[in-house]
């Protein structure tokens, strides 16, 4: 719930800052600098905070034409395999993001215009992907104990 709130705040913040940027440019003739960077970094937080939630709601698009053909066992096996592989991918992504975050922190990498350090955003990427792995693990356990449907 906390994550959803974070994502929602990021969403509204982007709406607000871009709109304010437009008003500043046309009404006051003073464009806001660095809106792009602000938006890009906020988007990282928005997406990564929303991803575990989206996964928990099973909102990812999948092809379900072959449901009946697979049978009950086929669906169970399919769900287990796809959750396992998807989880591994996100786990790898989280691990890579941690390495990159440490690297960026050590070298003091920052954005061009606003000089914002970028390492926290790789941490956000890692945390979001990591939480998503947890959601998938929970779904995996549930699927196995329920034995598919």
């Amino acid at each position, binding site marked *: 719930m906390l994550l*959803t709130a974070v*994502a*929602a705040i990021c*969403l*509204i913040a*982007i*709406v*607000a800052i*871009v*709109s304010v*940027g*437009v008003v500043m440019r*046309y009404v006051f003739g003073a464009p806001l600098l660095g809106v*792009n960077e602000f*938006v*890009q*970094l906020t*988007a*990282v937080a*928005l*997406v*990564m905070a*929303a*991803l575990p*939630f*989206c*996964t928990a*709601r099973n*909102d*990812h*698009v*999948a*092809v*379900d*034409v*072959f*449901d009946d053909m*697979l049978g009950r066992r*086929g*669906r169970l*096996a*399919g*769900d287990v*395999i*796809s959750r396992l*592989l*998807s989880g591994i*991918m996100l786990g*790898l*992504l989280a691990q*890579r*993001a941690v390495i*990159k975050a440490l690297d960026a922190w050590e070298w003091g990498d920052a954005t061009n215009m606003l000089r914002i350090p970028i390492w926290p*955003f*790789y941490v956000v*990427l890692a945390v979001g992907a990591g939480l998503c792995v947890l959601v998938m693990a929970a779904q995996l356990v549930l699927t196995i104990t329920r034995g598919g449907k």
Partner: protein
Amino acid sequence: MTPFATGVLGIACLFLLLIIRTPVAFAMLIVGFGGYWFLEGLRSAGGVLLTESYSAVSSYSLIVVPMFVLLGNVSSAAGFSRGLYDAAFAWVGRFRGGLASASVLGCAVFAAVSGSSVATAVTVGKVALPEMKRLGYAPGLSTGAIAAGGTLGFLIPPSTGFVLYAILTEESVGRLFMAGVVPGLLLTGLFILTIWIVSLLDPAAGPRGEPVPFAERFRVLMDAAPLLLVILLSIGGIYVGAFTPVEASAVGAALVILLAIIRRRLSWAAFREAVVSTLSTSAMLYTVVIGANVLNPFLAITRIPAAIGEGLGTLGLGAYGTLAVIILAYIVLGMFMDGLSMLVITVPIVFPIITALGFDPIWFGVVAVIVIEMGMITPPVGLNVFVVRSVAGDVPLTTIFRGVFPFLIAMIVGLLLIIAFPGIALLLPDTMFG
């Protein structure tokens, strides 16, 4: 194993993963990463995974996705679709099949705040289907009109389809949006013509609505005017170069939220629900982009797109023959896959072939989107038809598929016109400013 054979195996694995219901985004991620690992080693594969994921989530142009989804969700939650439908009905309701035509018009206008076919069909369907049922419309005509009208959501800007196409092909989102406008209006016109013909042949299918007095017509139109103004401002703003697509989307969302608050149309609970569903949809779409971004470098090193292009070239079909083969392949795929998945999986393979043949990349975006829309209303898997069924409740699927058939013909006519006269799609993007 050669890179090419690895690629073929990779595509086979991709379809296998899709069959066992792996979400499309993750299926692409798994195959792209696995294939890259196999060909270039784990280190490079990990590099691609991280770089492509980060560049997708921190992309500036992709921000139009959550912005426009929010715009559509808030308009729907605030009940603006009702106003649009009423206004459309006031003007065209007295003609043959008037309610169905009003529904299509309502869809077309709602499509201008929504980027999704499903959302358009649901939002307008909830308002229009009960009305048509009340007036005794044939269930086939009423549901067919909504299912077909809903597909306009994917074509009339803002369109999720165009945003994804732009990201995959590095074309301009603004130009693609503009290219969708006239074809969207053309299809709207053809759909209304279809309704008119259907109700001419079977007057009982689409009775006329009661005429609305002139003063009343303007009152309802004025009621819908603020939303029409938002649409005009955001889409017109992109055309005249006053806004970038990102700015247009954010300003549009801000205005619709303000409008809903001023008119006291939006409860806190409804707003929260609109935001929450925006977040989930956005996360889903971003994941799809990440998946496509990881799959594509792998496909590129296998040279599969190039090989398919050369293979098609040696058939000696010429440019339009090859285009016909590609469109047929899309139609067949569209029977089984949903539009979004189809777009992200096929465009990287088909796009180089199309541009090598000398076709305009923006124009092909429009063609691809229309063909994909046709897939949304063809059996056995027509996403829009399923959605309309769930809204209509008691209409059998076969009735809806039969009702949609005349509209499918209208879409084919529209598609042929756009192929014959590319100017229909290209006029606006070629004359836009900025």
